[in-house]
């Protein structure tokens, strides 16, 4: 796979193209062994993501999307290969260090039930920044701006149970990128949403990708979502079968 040195709006000042690399997964494999029968979930995958990219991971069920994302996100370890996130090989980090690394460098959006039910939308969005011990005025500034950007300003003090599924996912996206991580990783963030809410979420992700240069990698099954994404990586049986960049818009 050839290296893609794409320039993002925030990465321009860095002349060295290596600095714009966010994810560099090299030859990673993962085999599960449930009940003695080995399942090769990921087979020698190389993956390279530059700052500001917006990437969809697609493929049939069981093709290894979740497994791959978990490894990139530092939630799971590959059996072999290396995963460099901003030049740190996360496969060599201890569990405790990985937790810290995730906190400071990776934003997560899960499929559903992303939010902590006892916290308000604002408190949920602040969660990562609070763990990072970011000062209150800085947090407020950032949260106000983001809630405005996604049109949820009036829902800040509402508990997740009073938000629609789409609104919850939007708050989850805000939480993931509020602390400006290296990239946001999302495993089927739209799977539990109706198509209107799914498009809405995608719009917001794209908007923040443009405005903030936030890098995204997410998996999806939804063809209409796929149609709106520039770079689409397709997995089949744990292997990358295509990695296409289409010019949309």
């Amino acid at each position, binding site marked *: 796979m050839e290296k893609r040195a794409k320039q993002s709006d925030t990465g321009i000042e860095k002349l060295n193209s290596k600095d714009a690399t966010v994810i560099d997964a090299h030859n990673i494999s993962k085999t599960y062994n449930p009940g003695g029968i080995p399942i090769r979930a990921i087979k020698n995958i190389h993956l390279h993501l530059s700052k500001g990219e917006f990437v969809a991971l697609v493929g049939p069920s069981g093709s290894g999307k979740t497994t791959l994302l*978990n490894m990139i*996100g530092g*939630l*799971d370890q590959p059996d072999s290969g290396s995963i460099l996130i901003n030049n740190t090989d996360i496969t060599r980090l201890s569990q*405790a260090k990985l*937790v*810290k*690394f*995730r*906190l*400071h460098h*990776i934003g*997560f959006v*899960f499929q559903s*039930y*992303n939010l*902590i*039910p*006892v*916290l308000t939308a604002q*408190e949920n969005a602040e*969660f*990562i920044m*609070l*763990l990072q011990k970011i000062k209150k005025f800085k947090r407020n500034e950032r949260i106000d701006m983001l809630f405005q950007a996604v049109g949820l300003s009036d829902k800040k003090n509402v508990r997740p149970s009073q938000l629609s599924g789409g609104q919850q996912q939007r708050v989850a996206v805000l*939480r993931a990128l509020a602390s400006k991580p290296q990239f946001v990783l999302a495993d089927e963030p739209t799977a539990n949403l109706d198509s209107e809410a799914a498009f809405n979420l995608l719009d917001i992700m794209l908007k923040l990708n443009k405005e903030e240069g936030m890098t995204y990698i997410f998996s999806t099954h939804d063809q209409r979502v796929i149609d709106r994404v520039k770079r689409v990586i397709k997995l089949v049986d744990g292997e990358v079968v295509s990695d296409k960049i289409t010019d949309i818009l």
Partner: protein
Amino acid sequence: MTIKIAWRNIWRNKIRSLIIIVSVSSGLLAGMAVISLYEGMMRSRVRTVIETETGHIQIHQKNFLNDRMTEYYIPNPQLISDHLKNDMSVRAFSERTISEGMLSTASGVSGVSIIGILPQNEIIVSGLDQKIKEGFLIPREDINGILIGKKLSQKLKIHLGQKIILTVTDSAGNLTSSAFRLRGIYQSDNALIDEVNVYVSQQSIQAMLTLKNQIHEISVLLKSDEQMDECLRRYKIKFPDLAIDSWKSLSPETNLLVTTVDYYSFIILVILFIAISFGIMNTMMMSVLERRYETGMMMALGMGKYKIMYMIILETIFLSIISIPVIIPMALMTIQYYGEKGIDLSGMGKDMMYSFGFETTIYPVFPIEKLPSLIILLFITAIISSILPTWKSVQNSPIQALRN
């Protein structure tokens, strides 16, 4: 923020939390009730012992308590009484001539301790007049009068006015008997005493024993309990040849009771709190298992294991101590109320209480100095109850927790 989440988490399942809060509260109430009842019983027992049995301090000839022989009387009692009269700490004292003897009536015989008293002194020192249930206290000049306990009167079926023969060994070693008339029947809080102690005038027992104004016992009632240790020390120095004892050594069973009661109430508390802790643990366990996905997600986002554990411990502690600000003042007020009014336990077996030397009305007192240790005990209970749920909460890796 962890505190905020923990606090809000305990309100997620209100019914469940309420059950725990109620059970902790009832445990706390029960614990405080037990402590106060015990304390009340002990204090009244000590008061009874001091005010009706031994006084604060007793003075005897060195051998008398080991061997109640007639010849072990106190030499120079005048010296001591002069000293006591001038002692500012002394409220009153009473001199007694004592002899072991035999009491016989038409209906039976019983071994007794005959105590020769100056009745007016006993009114203050041992409250003897208060204990008379039938008849009256023998007047000073009544050399034929005798008082016996209710228990003995029942045993021997004696009635007021009946003739009673006392037989003793006099100081020369001769057996001598005298006839008395039953003037009064007393009842103290201690059945053991009521069965053996009989009271006659000092004059008459001295005559029987062929003693001249000699006494065996001086019982001293002080103005306050706090002065006892100091007086004890002073008298021991002043009268080195006499035996000076406090109620603690004269009634060792009472003293033992007082010291063991602390220990018992502690054990009862521990048992209570162990029961509570199972409840708390169970609730927290359910709550932790229900939230596996959520904690997994928090860990995935970058919240460390220790923070999660801290959160669960905090939740347990909150659940356990949340009721303290309400329950403790409430319990203290209730105890205060009953402490003044008294709790009548005669329904629970007056005879049983009486035969152990306890009054049937208990005035509960909560020893306020025990409050901190009670709260600490509750804290420890909370922390112990949180161990298993806390451990369980971080058992799953984030991907395991997130898979469902």
